[in-house]
């Protein structure tokens, strides 16, 4: 694994992801350069199919690039093997998905401790940490509930707690409010606000301008390329819910 002395927590250089070949070649991500500082919140927007989710997958080591480099916390990860990528995902990256992706057969607390157990933490420590996080996301009393017994917003909060269980360097959220109603969206926004204030690095892919407005920086993608970059002023200081117009 190569290392760098730069200050970026996440860095991509000339990043490409291609599907197909010849006339059917599709460039989902086409030469993206990106730096995300520690503690920064970056929102990525763009039309459907523009490559923003693919970019997120590449940054988190869920998928392998066709070309270019990806650096995470000073280490180059684009050439890592499957096993090393898995270890990286469990220790340095937390994912939050649009469709929650909770294990239906596990309770809320068991879902949260999943990553901790995978990381080799003891069952007792994993349970303690999971319970703490559920308290933090306001679901301490629902720890024993199955996902099917939780609302959409509650499920997403469980997913956020799971993403945080191993204290990752960066949380990558792919349309985290895409499946939620307004009230649940507010819940999740407040949660991300808390994370932001606590100095958690966040990269959020979204269609929702209200969420994007809460970020430190907004990237706009089209056809696999970052076509616009806007530094926002209120992201790191204001109340996210208020900025989004969801609360007074």
């Amino acid at each position: 694994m190569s290392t760098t002395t730069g200050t970026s927590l996440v860095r991509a250089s000339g990043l490409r992801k291609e599907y197909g070949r010849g006339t059917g070649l599709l460039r989902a991500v086409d030469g993206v350069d990106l730096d995300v500082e520690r503690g920064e919140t970056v929102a990525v927007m763009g039309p459907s199919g523009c490559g923003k989710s693919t970019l997120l997958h590449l940054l988190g080591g869920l998928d392998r690039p066709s070309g270019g480099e990806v650096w995470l916390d000073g280490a180059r990860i684009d050439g890592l093997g499957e096993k090393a990528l898995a270890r990286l995902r469990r220790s340095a990256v937390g994912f939050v998905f649009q469709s929650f992706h909770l294990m239906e057969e596990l309770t809320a607390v068991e879902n949260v401790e999943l990553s901790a157990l995978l990381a080799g933490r003891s069952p007792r420590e994993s349970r303690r940490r999971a319970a703490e996080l559920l308290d933090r996301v306001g679901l301490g009393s629902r720890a024993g509930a199955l996902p099917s017994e939780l609302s959409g917003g509650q499920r997403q909060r469980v997913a956020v707690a799971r993403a945080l269980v191993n204290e990752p360097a960066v949380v990558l959220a792919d349309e985290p409010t895409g499946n939620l109603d307004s009230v649940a969206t507010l819940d999740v926004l407040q949660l991300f606000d808390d994370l932001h204030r606590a100095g958690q690095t966040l990269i959020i892919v979204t269609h929702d301008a209200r969420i994007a407005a809460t970020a430190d920086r907004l990237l706009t993608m089209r056809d696999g390329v970052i076509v616009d970059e806007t530094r926002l002023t209120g992201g790191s200081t204001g109340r996210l819910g208020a900025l989004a117009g969801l609360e007074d």
Partner: protein
Amino acid sequence: MGRILLVGRLALRDLRRRPVEAALLLLAVLAATTTLTLGLVLRDSAAAPYENTRALTAGPDVVMSARTTGQLAAYGDAAGVTARSGPFPVATSTLATAGQTVDVLVIGRDTVDAPVDRPQVTDGGWVRDGGMVVEAAFATAYGLTAGDQVTLGGRAFEVAGVAVTAASAPFPATTCLGEIPCLHGVAPAGADLPPGMLRNPGLVWLTSADAGRLGVVSYVLNLRLEDPDLAATFIGSPDAPRVALSTEIRTDATEVAGDSQILLMIGAWLLGLLAVASLSVLVGGRMAEQTRRVGLLKAVGGTPGVVAAVLLTEYLLVALVAAAAGLGIGAFTAPLLADAGAGLLGSAGTPALSIPVIGTVTGVALAVAVLATAVPAWRAARSSTVAALADAARPPRRSGWLIQASARLPVPLLLSLRVTARRPRRALLAVAGIAVTVGGVYVALILDGFLSKPFAAGYTVAQVETLRRVLLLWTVILLVLAGVNAIVITLATVLDNRHTAALARALGATPRDVTAALSGAQILPALAGAVLGIFPGGYLLFEAIMGITGGDGDRATPPSAWQLITVVVMTALIVAALTAIPAHLGAHRPVTDSLRAETA
């Protein structure tokens, strides 16, 4: 520790979440483990009743017979002989009872007391003038009990008692003595049998005087040896007395248990193969269902090894439960298939599960699970995380020639052919599963026909019943497992084709067309499997059984053409019936649900 807990938790919860599939998995492995346990237990316990009888009746190590007592004289006091009884006179005759006649070997013996071979009376008393004692298996076969009147060589006798001995194998495998020619089973058609040859003789005891009146033709001497291996030294020149070793008698005495065991072992192998086929399909189907779960596990940091372990553990747990249950059920039901018969004391009904049996059954169960699971589990573990999270449908295999050839067919047949060609490995498993089942049915038909002929295989009615029970067990388990297999394959096909079926319906195919296509996709391999199951499957299987048992396959009649046609047609009909409901359910799934799942 944490990972072990996680793997165990995920495996158990997933099994609990899908109880029907877990039950089907269990059933598939259980069928094989139960049959294997029965086979192994019977092997271990087959000789127990004979050894028990030998101990209780002071059975001989050697039974010697010769035309004159002089020929035997030297052996009674030979070095290494620790005890003896006899020589006793031997005659042959014909016994008539209730309109039936049967050849008998008659031993003249005034008293049961002797250092060697003390037949144990199980009904009535010992011989007296005009009163005979009948060997127990022979008595049972002809319904003789103490007090019955019979005719022996034209003279009336009363059955004084019924007794068990270890000096002869029980009827109909009665150990032939001396120079008396003797035939077990049915004589080959047109065979020129020597005069005086006894056919399937029974054994009776009379007083020496009564035996003498029938005409003594031989004498028998029973010996106990210091070292049973010495018996081999008594087999010498052509003039030497004829020798029957206790080991030979034991082999004859336990023939049915041995044959049952062989049938069960072959059944266990067939069921094991079928279980692998069932599990492979079931696992493949479950893997398709678990794609998103696999993606999630990988997304949160599960390495391919952890993911494979989670997937494998489920099936290994099922295999372990199936092994334990199979061992229990096998040991419990073994007595039903291990009837020692009336000719021996004690029974094989209480066989103990030995460590090797437990190890073998558990090992086979785990091997079945690993064989069926390892490849799909590893493939799932190595799959793309992003694709798995999206639960993208696996792209179908495209066969240009098939698409061209099927283009002009009616919609259901067109879809059937394409669904079958889409997953060639699954189609192959379906063909193999049906072929194994039909092969088993083919052999069962031959053996059943063979056992229907009196004495055809040298068995008594009771023994035939025992073997028929084994065959019935075999056949029922095979058919049940094949049924499970057909349903499982259909469910997997329905799941796998949910997007294609939805698309076909979106393009105008009716639910009926799709139902017919999904069901037809099972019937086509079933027909191929049924034909292959008869030839070469059943034919080779029967030859293998004959080879292992040393049986004469020429004496068996192959199933008739109409029986075979019925088997093929019934196979197709049963598969159609079994697959109709899952196919119907799959074809009526809302189109939008399926298409949405694809794009989620």
